[in-house]
């Protein structure tokens, strides 16, 4: 299993994490995972993922960080 690509967007001002994520999605190989770390629920990103054939699951860490795992369907 390849190492997941990680975008730590916790110190970034929206919409920078969204733009970085969309740029990374195109490079995602089948089976590869993109992990995003954010302080909020990235609802515009979910909209982009739903429309373009990507799956995701999000987990809320104890420190309030949202960890979103994204993969190509």
């Amino acid at each position, binding site marked *: 299993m390849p190492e997941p690509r990680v975008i730590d967007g*916790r*110190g*970034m*001002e*929206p*919409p920078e994490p969204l*733009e970085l994520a*969309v*740029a990374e*999605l*195109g490079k995602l190989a089948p089976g590869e995972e993109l992990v995003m770390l954010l*302080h*909020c*629920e990235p*609802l*515009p990103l979910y*909209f*982009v993922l739903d*429309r*373009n054939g990507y799956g995701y699951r999000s987990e809320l860490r104890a420190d309030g960080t949202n960890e979103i795992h994204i993969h190509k369907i």
Partner: protein
Amino acid sequence: MQPALSFEQAPPISVPYRFFLTAPLFGVVAGLLLALLGPAALESRWAPGALAMTHLIVVDFMLQVMCGALLQFVAVVAGANIWRPRLVATLVHPLITAGAVLLASAFLLEQQVLFLLAALTFAVSLGLFLTVMAMSLLRTPARGMSIYVLRLAVLGLLVTVVLGVILASTLGMHENLQSVWSLLTLINVHVAWGLGGWALMLVIGVSFLVVPMFQLTPAYPVWLTRLVPAGLLLVLCLWSLQLLPGLAGAQAWQSAVASVGILLAGLYAAVTLWLQSKRRRRQADVTLVFWRGAMLALLAVAASWLALEALPQLGSHARAPLWLGVLALPGVFLSVIIGMLYKIMPFLNWLHLQRLGGMATPPPNMKQMIPESAMRGQMRLHFAALLLLLAAVLWPALATPAGLAFSASCLWLEWNLVGAARVYARFRDKIRAAASVASTS
């Protein structure tokens, strides 16, 4: 619980953009009017020029943007279905534009028929807008403090419009409603609901969502999100009691009620500034600086109000309300509005282009939609114009340079926003061209 953002509900981009691109033009007109009329426009709040400029700003600038933004925001944030957004925008946008021009002309030319036409235009256009908004906001399943405060803001607009239509009709028929209400009482209540119940309530409701999200601040304290909107509503209801017979002249309690409302507004501004000082990122973008400027102006409104109450000689000066008006309109509300436009338009561009182009034709970077240097330059001019306008209240001889500076700032804003709309149009055409090449090959 924060409401979910629902981008599938977003109306076509032309719905909000027609409002956003029209609004600054009326700021240009208001500034030119001040430059043209000179010190006469700043004699008192009752000067025809002051009344015309005020309504050009509150209706044709502020209300335009707020209507466009609400049509977008309510659909996306409240997940509410807005009835025929394109049709509503097509009807409401030209009518409120015309209504404010009629009203401003009525004040300047003192023509009764223009007041009546303005009243009719606002009753139809804003009646439709309010009905559509109220239906959407009451039916949405979304919950949360922002939705609750947005509902209060729409109620605030309703009361403002009803009183405004009564006022314009009264002036149009040249009959004073002295037997029921004095004109001054009606104006007092109309202004309070317009600025406190509509404009400030809307800023508060939006800020509960966007300040933590876009400015990376901690969330607003729960006690504040409960106290300020409910407190403001209570203050406005008590303030409106002066419409009841026998209570119009009771100055002491009116002054106490108004001071409580002003203190609530000041508290909200202070907490917002405190949250912004706790943000997780040090770098300040243009939107943040506009918000900070607006909150400082709101604190200045509160401090000035209390000082004018404490010093009756100063408080009774004919230009004292103009000082408060300049701080509140260009200072608080236009600063927030311009700051938000610089955030909303690049984001809407990006979102709609992403939806059109998918992963095949990625939209340009959001930072390229409006050049940072152009936004910063315009922001400096906006705050410089604000200081000049305040100086012109103190020394009316400065009215012409202040008006020209304000006009130039609004023109620069328009240029920046048109630039963003052109970036959208250029990339939309590029995506369509790529799609048609792909379909023919």
